[in-house]
């Protein structure tokens, strides 16, 4: 890493202020106006639209393996998804995913 302390703090402060402004953007506008139906319809798919895209590269080419496909990570992700769909419970999905990652990692090591 090749930054001066000033540059690092510039990054931290810009990110902190910028992130707050993003979070405050719509909520900060005063009033209790109803948003139009078409906008609400799109917003319903925010989490389910963004999070899978964020997860995909982390599963397919994880940094921890130098971007190589890793069978135990793909298996863990699939299992977490399957358990999440089956139980409708995020915690069981996490437990299943991490347990499978550790189990397979130990078996394949």
């Amino acid at each position, binding site marked *: *890493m090749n*930054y001066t302390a000033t540059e*690092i*703090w*510039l*990054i*931290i*402060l*810009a*990110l*902190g202020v*910028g*992130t707050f402004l*993003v*979070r*405050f*953007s*719509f*909520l*900060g506008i*005063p*009033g209790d106006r*109803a948003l139009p139906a*078409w906008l*609400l*319809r*799109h917003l*319903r*798919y*925010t*989490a*389910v*639209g*963004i*999070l*899978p*895209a*964020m*997860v995909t590269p*982390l*599963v397919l080419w*994880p*940094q*921890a393996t130098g971007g190589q496909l890793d069978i135990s990570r793909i298996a*863990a*992700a699939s299992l*977490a*998804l399957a*358990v*999440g769909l089956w139980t*409708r*419970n*995020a*915690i069981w*999905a*996490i437990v299943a*995913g*991490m347990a499978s*990652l*550790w189990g397979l990692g130990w078996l394949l090591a």
Partner: protein
Amino acid sequence: MPVSSPRAAFWRGLTAALPFLIVLGPFGLLFGVVGTEAGLDVGQVMGFTVLVIAGASQFTALQLMHDNAPTLIVIASALAVNLRMAMYSASFVPHLGAAPIWQRALIAYMTVDQTYALANGEYEAAPKQTTAEKVAFFFGTAAPTIPVWIGASALGIVVGEAIPPALGLDFAVPITFIALIAPALRTLAHVAAALTSIVMAIALSFLPWNLWLLAAGLAAMIVGAEVERRMEARR
């Protein structure tokens, strides 16, 4: 039906958030460890953790700094990862827009994937609650989440290199996100949006600055909304 109150809503939110600490803790710890190893000092790691409170973007910034990317690129990319929160902010408006400005500012500061997903799920399941109850529920979810996030990072600085890479803690992040998505795949529209998101993330991965993330998210939202509209038109 029990009499509901902000106090009850706060505890309901707090209880709902507790299980996620199992994952959030290690995630925060990991940032402390990785940040310290990357060469940040204690103040800088804590600066990220307290001022930004957004794991994915903090890790994005760290990765780009590790690659010595230009300062502006680091800021723009890490902010791009957080743009999804503008949509979180917008989806809170019908439920929390009537709250006092200081409450809305605090809510904005503490809006992370977990608190958003829990609160939004609650508001969709029980939309008739008062604004005070909805605000209390959100603060309930944030009450354990934010301190644990900050505390775990501080602990991570201390623990440092004692954590073996074999633990695969890097993968706690995607596993958490998958666990949050799966139960939300309630309808065909949700499934269509999630599939679009994955396909677009792969197809557009050549785009610089995390723009693929924004493009994929936007495309997925359009597909989800369109599928919902057509399903309703058929009824």
